């Protein structure tokens, strides 16, 4: 392996444009023979030398035919990728240390069956997929997030050795999208804001609750919560959210200042994060107070609060 291969590849990848949508064309599809392709080339060369030496015409035929087959394999491999449309699908945030999913959508705009493999630039899990004619397919590439904050999608390598396994067609794509890593929640027993009311969450749809807003469907939402009319009209799965503020319930203050000054930044954020989750779980109202930023109760507060924690930087 080349000594600076990794650096070289990194430098080269950084020069690629960031794209949210891309269609693979001849400018970005690269074609190289596989090991099998090289060995077949070697065989063709050996047969050719034999033909040259012994003046065996039919051996020339064989050598040149194999060579022609290799060239046709190049075109066929190119066709596996050419025209393929790739698109980023916004991903949900995850907590540090969890594996995030870089979600993509692949679209095959032609009648060809395509057989692809994908991998992120950091290596890791290999994703294979077969796209039938005119098919769209969502894909996810796992990525382990080690640090709080925004992470760009890794560059993605797509390749195909179909149909012969002689030539590998590959392309790189830097999706223009990011993943947010929330702080790792750390239990904070000192500040237990919420009282678990027998584990009853607000999502259980109490009759007394008032409709608040429509939110994105989350796993665990009950059928009653699903906005069926929206689904019928726009083909979007949405859930009704209810503002269940029992009169007189206290607004919890989750504040940066709750902790001694000695506690470091990440620990504070982790604890705050845990508390946000606890409140969300219990269906409590809360206000997150960070230096320079306050997240008030509002629709989608969970995501906003977590994002604020994830993005937080001490004002200088």
């Amino acid at each position, binding site marked *: 392996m080349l000594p600076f291969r990794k650096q070289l590849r990194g430098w080269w990848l950084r020069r690629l444009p960031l794209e949210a949508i891309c269609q693979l064309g001849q400018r970005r599809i690269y074609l190289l023979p596989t090991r*099998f392709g090289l060995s077949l080339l070697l065989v063709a060369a050996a047969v050719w030398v034999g033909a040259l030496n012994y003046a065996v015409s039919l*051996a020339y035929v064989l050598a040149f035919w194999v060579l022609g087959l290799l060239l046709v394999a190049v075109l066929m491999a190119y066709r596996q990728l050419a025209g393929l449309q790739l698109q980023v699908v916004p991903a949900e945030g995850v907590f540090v240390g969890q594996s995030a999913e870089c979600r993509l959508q692949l679209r095959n705009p032609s009648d060809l069956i395509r057989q692809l493999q994908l991998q992120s630039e950091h290596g890791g899990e290999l994703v294979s997929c077969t796209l039938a004619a005119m098919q769209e397919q969502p894909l996810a590439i796992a990525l382990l997030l080690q640090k709080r904050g925004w992470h760009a999608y890794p560059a993605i390598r797509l390749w195909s050795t179909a149909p012969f396994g002689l030539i590998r067609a590959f392309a790189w794509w830097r999706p223009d999208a990011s993943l947010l890593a929330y702080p790792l929640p750390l239990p904070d027993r000192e500040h237990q804001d919420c009282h678990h009311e027998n584990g009853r969450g607000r999502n259980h749809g109490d009759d007394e609750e008032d409709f608040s807003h429509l939110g994105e469907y989350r796993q665990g939402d009950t059928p009653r919560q699903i906005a069926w009319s929206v689904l019928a009209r726009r083909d979007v799965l949405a859930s009704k959210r209810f503002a269940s503020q029992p009169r007189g319930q206290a607004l919890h203050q989750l504040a940066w200042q709750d902790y001694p000054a000695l506690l470091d930044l990440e620990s504070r954020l982790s604890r705050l994060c845990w508390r946000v989750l606890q409140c969300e779980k219990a269906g409590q109202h809360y206000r997150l107070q960070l230096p320079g930023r306050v997240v008030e109760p509002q629709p989608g507060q969970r995501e906003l609060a977590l994002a604020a924690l994830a993005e937080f930087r001490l004002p200088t």
Partner: protein
Amino acid sequence: MSFSLFRQGEMAVLLALGLVMLPLFLHLPVWLPGLVLAMLLLRGILQQRQHGLPSLWLLLPLLGLSVCGLWLNLNTLIGREGGAALLILLLGFKSFEARQLRDWQVLLALGFFLTAIPLLFDQSPLSALWLVVSLLVLTWAMLRLSGCAVQTPAKVAVQALALSLPLMLVLFVVMPRLPGPLWSMPHEQHQAATGLSDSMEPGSISQLVQHNEPAFSVVFDGPAPAPEQLYWRIMIFDDFDGRRWQNVGGLSRETVRLQGGERIRYRLTGKPTRSRLPLLDYPLAAPPGGGLEPGHLLKLANDQEDVLRISAESLVGSHYQSELSRSDQDFYRRLPPGNPASRQLALQWRSQGGDGIGFVREALLHFRLGGFAYTLSPPLLEGDNSIDAFMFSTRQGFCEHYASAFAFMARAAGIPSRVVSGYQGGQFNPLGHFWQVRSTDAHAWVEVWLAERGEWLRVDPTAAVAPERVRQDPVRSIPALQTQLPVLGRQVPAWVLQVQQGWQAAGFAWQQWVVGYDATRQLSLYRWLGLGDVVDTAAVMRALLCGAVLVCLPLLWWWRRHPERLPLQQGRMLLERALLRQGMVILPSDGPLDMLNKARKLPTPAYAQLKQLLKEYAAMRYQQAACSPQQTRLWLRRVRHFCADLTRRK
């Protein structure tokens, strides 16, 4: 074993290897390909049962053992046969070592190499056909092995090979050929040489004649000489031991002047025997790659056994003038003791005729009128006085008997003489515009040296006995041949002759343009196409550029081809068209029920059929999960039948 077994890539590779190896049964000791085939089969069974593979400690001694067997059988591990045998053995053992995809790919690549091996032995059109089959099967196995989503690997294999065919043709024509080998191969002697042998005794030519194999073919530039002038000389026999004529190479050098005659240019294609190829008498100069040895015969410089094509120029009907020293004259008069009666007769002719030419006249007169018969199966001549026995008692013989007797008589009369063997005549093939000379045309005649003219004169005593022999086909001139030759060689109906000639012409074209496409032919093609006067880099580049256009056309067609319609769409389109022909207009927006509604006026059976078809269409179209591609194809086939019926009924 069911065919579905080979859906597994590994099985497909084993099958392909087995098929590719089959022609080697013809060229190697049968146990070798048999053993390897059995190994492949065993490997397939292990694969099928998901069985473990035998350990290396078992395989290595077995491999050693089989290589020893190979050595004992063939006495070589290199060269054409040794190399081929070793390769297939290694292939067989390698298959027991194949575990991962990579190993199977190595096997497959070796399979492609293996395809080349039978071509070293045989380049007939049948081999070419087998080459195509092998390539197809290997490509199919490659598709199977790569485990890709191609639903019809056989179709893709055919497509890929068809698309690469033009490229192969262009490279075949354009890529430079070498005039000679890069390195030479150890020669294999144990092949039986066909053709004329290097000595002549009674029976040596008449045996050859019965084979009726093609010997060589000739294309004349310009009109061909008359058949009776076509004497193709190969060898001279200058020594007689009482029974057999052979060449002892008595004449070390010779200066020849050819006088008169007609210049004939021709191209001859044939397989050299012991570095010799026939030339029409008498050649003006040796073609490149050979020299004229004393006696004006072609001897090739290198000892090869492949088919050669040479251009030559000869003077037909010219005088072969050459001075013989006294010792040389004595050499050409040497005779063993015996045959007193013949010697006496020879001296009598000499005294009657006066000079050499007079002797020849007397002798030929005797052969013509002396009650001699031309036959392929003469009585055996035994004893020391075989010439006497032939001249005075049996008087039946073939060309070798007449040539031998005539040369003996001339020597006995003090006239230097020698026997020439070669071919006489040939058959013109009007389809291929070439002359085919066959082993039936093998012949022997005599040359006598006339002191008064200083010239070797060709005398064909057989022509005196059976003049039709030199004027036409020997098959027609010797009634005996017609019964002895295989059916195809006899006098045959015209259509059989035509088929025969067509087959010969095809073989000739194959030989000329495929097997014999070498550096010289390539050069002439380059010149003819105007690509250049020499095959150099520039000319090859020009040719490749022109060829690229030809190669790209089918590729472009494939690239831009309208994507294949799905069976359901196509079936609907067919139904629309068929109904339109019945005067029912179906709009693109019409669904199956609308179509059925519009087709109400169809006769009842057709309507019922259509109803069933459309019902299935709706089921397959709108409940896609429930239908397989095969179902849709079957449906399409029924739609086709229905449409054809509908149109026919109208």
